[in-house]
């Protein structure tokens, strides 16, 4: 048992060292702020993919408007920072809360829908929010976008230098993904999985499916909002096209390619779909077509994704066999 615990914490430790020491060292050695920017984008999209994983992967609801909530977060953070002069530490959680608030608002009437109807409703909601961002010029500045100066400042320390911003993004991303991991690998996550497998059956078992859907949708929007806040503060410029349907599809493709229902899969998918087009940049701007081709091949050849739910669950179960095992009188569960 202690062996398994040990190796699980070993994996986490290796990942953390990679995230907080090795990657920054390599980036520092290469010394190009452009690469820091790519790393930040990769981490932000990893967070977005992880948040969509909660809805599409775990709860099995096809969500085609995720970028809109990311956009709400970004615009909230940017507007609060530029118009009201709020500090980063205040805008970031507010961005998440604003996105979650709008998510509850749109979720209340639409979350009774299932499968394709749900997908289309989220598509329409995403497009409506996008239209508002684009055309409500008095507030959102419309197509001109918003410029942020002095993006990252915590307790008076200016952290907007590329290598410092990297650590801020890495910190927020790591904590958020940890929370999403705990959520999706718990009884709560299992309840969400029951929605994916058969929501009528889950309903019959006494699970409040509508409420669970609203909660999952809201949580995912919260983390998308956080990602939006990070994006606004690290890039310093946001405009509506960053949050259009293509972005929603990009995030969805990450989750699908990585493996629906698997958090490591979503992260791998995000890294793949951000870093692959960057690596292929020498050939030309082919990001979107790469996304399409990779997504198509993944659905055709790897229907379970790179790291599918089943294999990932097996991995987790093997690694954490001690925690998973039956505790006397308490049934099967985590600790």
């Amino acid at each position, binding site marked *: 048992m202690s062996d398994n615990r040990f190796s699980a914490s070993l994996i986490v430790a290796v990942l953390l060292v990679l995230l907080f020491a090795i990657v920054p060292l390599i980036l520092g050695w290469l010394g190009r702020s452009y690469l820091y920017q790519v790393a930040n984008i990769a981490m932000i999209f990893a967070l977005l993919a992880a948040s969509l994983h909660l809805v599409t992967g775990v709860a099995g609801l*096809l969500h085609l408007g995720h970028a809109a909530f990311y956009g709400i977060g970004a615009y909230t953070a940017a507007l609060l920072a530029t118009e009201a002069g709020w500090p980063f530490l205040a805008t970031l959680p507010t961005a998440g809360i604003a996105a979650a608030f709008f998510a509850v608002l749109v979720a209340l009437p*639409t979350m009774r829908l299932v*499968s394709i109807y749900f*997908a289309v409703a989220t598509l329409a909601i995403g497009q409506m929010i996008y239209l508002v961002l684009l055309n409500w010029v008095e507030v959102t500045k419309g197509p001109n976008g918003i410029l942020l100066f002095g993006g990252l400042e915590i307790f008076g320390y200016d952290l907007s230098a590329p290598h410092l911003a990297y650590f801020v993004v890495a910190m927020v991303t790591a904590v958020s993904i940890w929370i999403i991991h705990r959520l999706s690998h718990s009884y709560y996550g299992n309840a969400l999985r029951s929605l994916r497998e058969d929501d009528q059956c889950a309903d019959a078992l006494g699970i409040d499916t509508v409420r669970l859907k609203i909660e999952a949708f809201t949580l995912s929007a919260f983390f998308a909002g956080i990602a939006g806040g990070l994006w606004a503060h690290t890039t310093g410029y946001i405009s509506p096209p960053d949050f259009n349907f293509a972005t929603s599809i990009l995030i969805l493709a990450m989750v699908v390619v990585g493996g629906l229902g698997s958090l490591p899969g979503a992260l791998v998918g995000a890294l793949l779909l951000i870093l692959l087009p960057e690596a292929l940049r020498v050939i030309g701007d082919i990001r979107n077509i790469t996304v399409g*081709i990779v997504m198509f091949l993944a*659905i055709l050849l790897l229907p379970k994704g790179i790291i599918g739910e089943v294999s990932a669950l097996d991995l987790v179960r093997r690694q954490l066999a001690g925690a998973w095992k039956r505790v006397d009188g308490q049934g099967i569960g985590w600790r």
Partner: protein
Amino acid sequence: MDYWLQQLTIGLSLGMIYALMAIGFTLIFGVLNVVNFAHGEVYTIGAFVGLLVITAFAPPLIAVVVLVMAAGAFVGFGLERIAFKPFRRFTDEASLKSRAMRESTLMSSLAFSIVAREGLEIAYGSQYQTVPLDYLINQPVDLFGVTIVVGDIIIFALAVVMLVGLQFLLTRTRVGLSIRAVSNNPLGAKYVGINTDRTIITTFAIGSMMGAAAGLLVGLYYGAIFPSMGFIPGIKAFVAMVMGGLSSIPGAVICAIILGLSESLATAFVPSVWADMVAYGFLILTLVFFPQGLFGTGRERV
């Protein structure tokens, strides 16, 4: 008064365009029970093929329409082979109705649409293509004292011809009979000896034919042909289909016309950039209040 009549004709031709696209959606949803997300790209490809034909040969308009429809049928065939056929390996009833199967074709058609759109964008750039002036169908004509555009008449006439043709095909021919049989019950159709595979391909060809024609007509009407032109009409046609009750062709046509009319009338009250809101609003309202559609026959859980 003139202004309203003009808006009305514009709305009517817009609605006819949505109707042509919505029929493609409805037919395909009927036979396969899946949504074809690449339908908007068929529309775009139709417009681009028309442009190619016009710049290369400059034939009369009716020949362009026929050629574009042929190209649309071919695209529909290719689309079915690439994005839908590989996911029909399992033909038992359980997997025909399974959600996972539906969602995988949803995403494969989405992927197909991304590749098609981005391919066009790489080949032609994302800006508007120039359409030869002779082919633009926006000359004003005076009809009973109301000034409308000749394109309105052409679109209306062609759409009516196609709708009547489709009705004839579906109700009076063997092909139509097999399409109706497959959409009624795929397994049963198979048992009575209908070649379901061929029927599905035919359906895709017919639906894409109409979608491609719609794309061409809109391209010539507005003089705006660009790679992402199919996205918004695709969504609106989808809205019309959902409002019409998913499997009802007359319902989809009526709702498409309602949608076109309300959109063009809405521009009288709000800036035209907000007109798209109407369609999305209609969709949400329909899904929430009439989940079976306005003309649907309650047949499954929404």
